């Protein structure tokens, strides 16, 4: 079933689907993208209002959940012994993983000179920031005394105490803080030329002033562009090892412990692949509806859907390999506790989560081998929801199923999330979506100058070359 958004466009000279529908000029690209933010309230698509309303209501659920948690204590959550870490860590890892796709798209694909990333990098990177903001709430909230969170940072204090730097939990503090800071810096630097374009197109004086201030006086000088490109490459080159290290450090939260199911060296690459997997699913989850509602099919083409699905398929296969290896280790080790852990996953009380995980993360995404499915926005969107749920279940299996039955049967117990666990989790989804809607409203969701670059390159290819 052909999607009406995907007009039949001729393939470009490389035999590929074009990254940008032909026929655009520098001005038309600028207008189409920046017009979204200049729409008067009456002309804004009603889907935005509906979406924002739902997101805002879920945000209230977050406030409610946090308030109740802070006043009553972590007892309102389902934590117990042995499952002393529950939804908080699951959600933290889930959100951070989702954030990594944005950095991968902005940074790693920039280094590989993959121009198709240009139209998705802006909102993918924005999504990273919002995901990290959601993730960052959990380490603070799950503390027994959250008002003492600042003790995690090394600062001179009257108690003469310092953090214990050999712990991955402290490494997390530095990794996530650095990740958040560098992502903001990278994203904002990328925005500067676009904020200048907004300043120059704004009609309202106050709006012009605000965008002007935010764009730092960017004027498009060739000298500025030169340094800017160098800075972008450097930031991309720095963000790449950063994103790989952050999720590896997060995985080490588990890997340095001793319990079966956690104590395995495969975790760093397995978590990073899983992060890319979940993150691309979230980028597509946002991208597909936004593309439809705002008519951005010219910039977010069939090629993007196709390529991003392939990336998801690849990372999904790496994740599947990780699961397979876990099973292999459990068996090959001959260790009764490892074998017990595996047995528990297959037939224990939480086996439904393990099999749902296999379905969502391994079985369903195999549909992506089909080109028709990869380029069908609705089916693709549905598959992405399966992947998002599957990745949450993966962390559930790792945290809860491994914890609830460890070495001593006398220690075994069950675990379930209470309504306050769910309230905070769904509330963070609301927070995330609220930020997404605000972002779409006030900032160009696609990188304008990079789209212009694509148009310019096409122009150069056609008219440049010989006659210079």
């Amino acid at each position, binding site marked *: 079933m052909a999607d009406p958004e995907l007009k039949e466009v001729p393939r470009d000279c490389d035999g590929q689907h074009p990254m940008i529908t032909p026929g655009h*000029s*520098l*001005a038309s690209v*600028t207008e189409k993208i920046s017009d979204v933010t200049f729409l008067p309230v009456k002309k804004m698509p009603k889907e935005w209002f509906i979406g924002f309303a739902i997101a805002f209501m879920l945000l209230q659920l977050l406030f409610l959940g946090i308030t109740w948690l802070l006043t009553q204590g972590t007892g309102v959550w389902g934590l117990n012994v042995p499952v002393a870490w529950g939804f908080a860590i699951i959600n933290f890892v889930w959100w951070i993983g989702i954030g990594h796709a944005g950095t991968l798209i902005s940074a790693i694909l920039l280094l590989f000179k993959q121009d198709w990333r240009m139209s998705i990098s802006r909102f993918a990177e924005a999504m990273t920031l919002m995901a990290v903001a959601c993730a960052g709430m959990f380490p603070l909230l799950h503390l027994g005394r959250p008002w003492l969170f600042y003790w995690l940072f*090394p600062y001179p204090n009257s108690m*003469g*105490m*310092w953090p214990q*730097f*050999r712990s*991955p939990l*402290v*490494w997390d503090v*530095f*990794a996530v*803080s*650095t990740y958040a*800071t*560098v992502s903001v*810096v*990278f994203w*904002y*630097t990328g925005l*500067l*030329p676009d904020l200048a*374009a907004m*300043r*120059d*197109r704004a009609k309202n004086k106050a709006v012009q002033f605000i965008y002007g201030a935010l764009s*730092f*006086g*960017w*004027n*498009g*000088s*060739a*000298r*500025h*562009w*030169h*340094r*800017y*490109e*160098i*800075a972008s490459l*450097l*930031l991309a080159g*720095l*963000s790449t*090892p*950063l994103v790989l*290290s952050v999720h590896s*450090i997060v995985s080490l939260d588990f890997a340095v412990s001793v319990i079966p199911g956690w104590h395995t060296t495969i975790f760093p690459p397995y978590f990073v692949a899983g992060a890319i997997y979940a993150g691309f699913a979230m980028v597509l989850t946002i991208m597909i509806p936004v593309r439809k509602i705002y008519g951005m099919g010219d910039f977010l083409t069939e090629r993007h859907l196709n390529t991003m699905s392939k990336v998801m398929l690849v990372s999904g296969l790496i994740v599947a390999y990780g699961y397979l290896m876990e099973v292999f280790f459990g068996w090959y080790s001959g260790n009764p506790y490892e074998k017990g852990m595996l047995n528990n996953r297959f037939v224990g009380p939480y086996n439904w989560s393990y099999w749902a995980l296999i379905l969502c993360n391994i079985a369903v995404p195999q549909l992506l081998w089909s080109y028709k499915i990869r380029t069908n926005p609705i089916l693709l969107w549905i598959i992405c929801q399966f992947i998002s749920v599957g990745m949450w279940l993966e962390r559930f299996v790792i945290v809860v199923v491994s914890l609830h039955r460890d070495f001593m049967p006398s220690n075994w117990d069950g675990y379930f999330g209470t309504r306050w666990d769910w309230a905070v989790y769904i509330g963070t989804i609301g927070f995330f979506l609220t930020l997404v809607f605000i972002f779409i409203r006030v900032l160009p969701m696609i990188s304008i*100058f990079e789209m*212009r*670059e694509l148009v*310019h390159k096409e122009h*150069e290819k056609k*008219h440049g070359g010989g006659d*210079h």
Partner: protein
Amino acid sequence: MATKKKQPEDLYGVIAQFDDSHELMKAADAAREAGYVNMDAYSPVPVHGLDETLGRKRSKLPYIVLCGGITGLCLGFALQVWVSCIEYPVNVGGRPFFSWPSFIPVAYECTILFAALSAAFFMCYLNGLLRPYQSIFNAPNFERASIDRFFLCIEVEDPKFEYNEVLEFMGAFNTENVADVPK
């Protein structure tokens, strides 16, 4: 021969507007050949080769970022060594106080943090961004520089600047407009 015009009092430079980056490159090339030094080109997209054509040397930014990264590495590592060996040593799992492999992740993150912050901050600083007033914004039609037009401006500070010569020089190219930029 056009009649000679009088150079305005508060002139910043003379700007030419092009609708194509090729024309801009040709003009910039010719301007460099003619010996102009204080000039700049403005475009809505980065134009490759334009910066060299305008006669610029390699940027110092990569070296600054490297220094920033090394600073971060040293500070991060030194902090941990000081805390774990001198100020607040704690026996964790029988590890020696100077358990340097455990210090790698935090030192690594500090390296990246300092390097990234240097990259962004010094890019803005060296570019002179964050100036509230820039004369170039007084150029007519300059809003198009961030949309779809290309500009070349030869500044009055240039030692070879002579008002009428520059006007004539600019007029020789396929420009859409040649205008004065007041300060």
